[in-house]
């Protein structure tokens, strides 16, 4: 890196996992969003059908897109934190065993 970030970030062993997870969750949401746009374009009348509590598909789908974004975000954060903690413990154990091994020699 040619110049430092505003606050330096250490090595992130969970980085590749988070990137893979992020892309998968992004693809899922992108497909969900694309299906919403596709129904609007290909069968706009379908959007007027009442589907829940007097609300039509357009409203329910719109609210769902907002709610699913939040749920996905929370799941993503939970999985990322879980992996970060897991890898931190592994690294910690690895460092400890290396130190102990050096001590014995």
């Amino acid at each position, binding site marked *: *890196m*040619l*110049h*430092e*970030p*505003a*606050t330096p*970030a250490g090595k*992130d062993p969970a*980085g590749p996992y*988070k*990137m893979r997870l*992020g*892309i998968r*969750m*992004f693809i899922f*949401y*992108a497909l969900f*969003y694309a299906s*919403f*746009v596709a129904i*609007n*374009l290909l069968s*706009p009348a379908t*959007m*007027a059908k*009442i589907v829940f*509590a*007097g*609300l*039509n598909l*357009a*409203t329910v789908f*719109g*609210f769902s*897109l*907002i*709610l699913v*974004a*939040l749920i*996905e*975000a*929370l799941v*993503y*954060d939970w999985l*990322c*934190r879980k992996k*970060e903690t897991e890898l931190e413990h592994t690294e910690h154990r690895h460092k400890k065993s290396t130190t102990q091994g050096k001590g014995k020699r």
Partner: protein
Amino acid sequence: MAIIIFLIFVVFVIGLSLYLGNKAKTSSGYYAAGGKIHWGVNGIAFAGDYLSAASFLGICGMIATVGYDGFLYSIGYLAGWIVALFVVAEPLKRLGKYTFTDAVDANYNSRGIKLAAAISTLVVSICYLIPQMVGAGVLVEPLLGIPHSWGVIMVGAIVITIVATAGMASTTYVQFLKGSLLIIFSTVLVGAVVIRGLSTQPDQSGKVPYYEYTQHAATKTGDQYTVDEAGWNVVEQKEIKGGLVFLKLDHEDKETWWYASESDGVTLLKETQSVVAKSDGKWINGSPASATNQLRQVGNLEKIAGDGGVETGSLSVFEFLSLLTDKDTSVRTWKTANFVDAAGEKVTVYYPQIVSGDRIMRPGLKFKVEGTLLERLDFLSLMLALFLGTAALPHILIRYYTVPSPASARKSTIVAIASIGFFYILTLFMGLGAMVNGVINPADSNMAAPLLARSFGELLFAIISAIAFATVLGTVSGLIVAASGAVAHDLMDRYLKVKMDDRQKVTAGKISAFVIGGIAILLGILFKGMNVTFLVGLAFAVAASANLPAITMLLFWKKTTARGIAASIVVGIVASLGLIAFSPDLYTLYGLNPLDAPIPFSNPGIISIPLSFITLVVVSLLTQKAEIAKA
């Protein structure tokens, strides 16, 4: 009272900026608030940055006039945060220092990238600044009773003060405060709307008597109309494009414009509102404009489904939406027509249209989803730009540098999604509330939400207006910080390598903020009258075209080269701006016939975003060897 609350709020915001000024003595403090902001505060500040005039004023105004189509912006704006969270947040935090340019240039040290990315930041920021300043003008006009241009100048001056005193630290806390208040008081407003319920004769809680628009039967002989009722005479008949017919009627020496409509073989002349630019000044509804003769606020239900009669009383949120969705409910909406009359005077007519609930609550009133292929592609292009634009907005990207770690960047994005998502659900209720409560200014839909608040009392109006004003202040501050960073940090310091110590860099940033603020004021005056969320949609398209291909490809494609990134940014800017400049909407702004526009659609994203990606790939593949040799 409205003015007092408003002034207290403005003084408080400026006071906070001066107090935080001591944090802005270094570059890190000025551009990134020292990288020490808590993720929770930053998340709400994200919401503050993002929920700009476009979201609060523009979306609510658009829903109030075209129903569900306005809500599509809410959906698209929120969906864009998914790209920010899953693709951009953490990697960008790791790469960058203060600006978007820092991040894309981190692995290359390329003068080409520095120049292209800095120009891109400037262009996108200015595109985004225009609607904010327009929003500021429309907000201050009714609140303080000053002209639009003075409102824009006032906002510009306050924002320059905020940015020049404390930079990102003050901007962050202003955004946090504003984001929190906006969500809290929008919830209060929505609560008030559903408690009031629906009525076919809204009278703003007894404050403004309901005005009953009249209609007269007419007879059509050939192309000529005559009014069936005695005492009403047709003075002039005007047919405009689309086959719409307007008649100027004389009654008791007063001339007014009426809209001719035909249904089931019956011809009816419906009362309109009109503004005529005469040589002796503006005439409104047949009389000279004055403090007491202004356009009436409009929007009401014609009929409520079921046996609710003319008033429903309190409703639950589901009942409120389901009644408005019902095909037996009908809404009186208002459209605009412009023409020149026989005397050569410019006439603007606002005429009523009755639309059923099931049409209001599905797409199609604004976006032609059932129209021609080009019209459908225009809609697709908009939805694409909204989805991809968020993660490419410079003033959003720089907020990732104000938190201490990549994990904080991720968490603050999640807080942003929660708060912004909740607010966007509220926009549907606020917009529909304005649509049926007789609070829409037919000449400018942008004030729908604050005027809805006024229908519940001056206190709520004052608070909502002050928050809306802070919304503009906060977003403009963030944009000016981003743009001044592009000039002082990216161009002067890193591209031109002007020798400056840390203090001089901050001074350069502040001077840049002053100049960019001046440009924003000018543009805000020039673009008066356009719907602010439409303008923001265009800014999203420019951002998505210029910046997103560079950000994503440098993260995910190892063959990306510096020249590929620089070329894609330049192509993205030129293509998107070029397509917008020759689009029908801009032709209307120039005063030309929109049908003569060489580009047949208004949203450029569907062409400019793929073009920018393709440019990056092709140029990167062509410059592989050159860059390996250079390395």
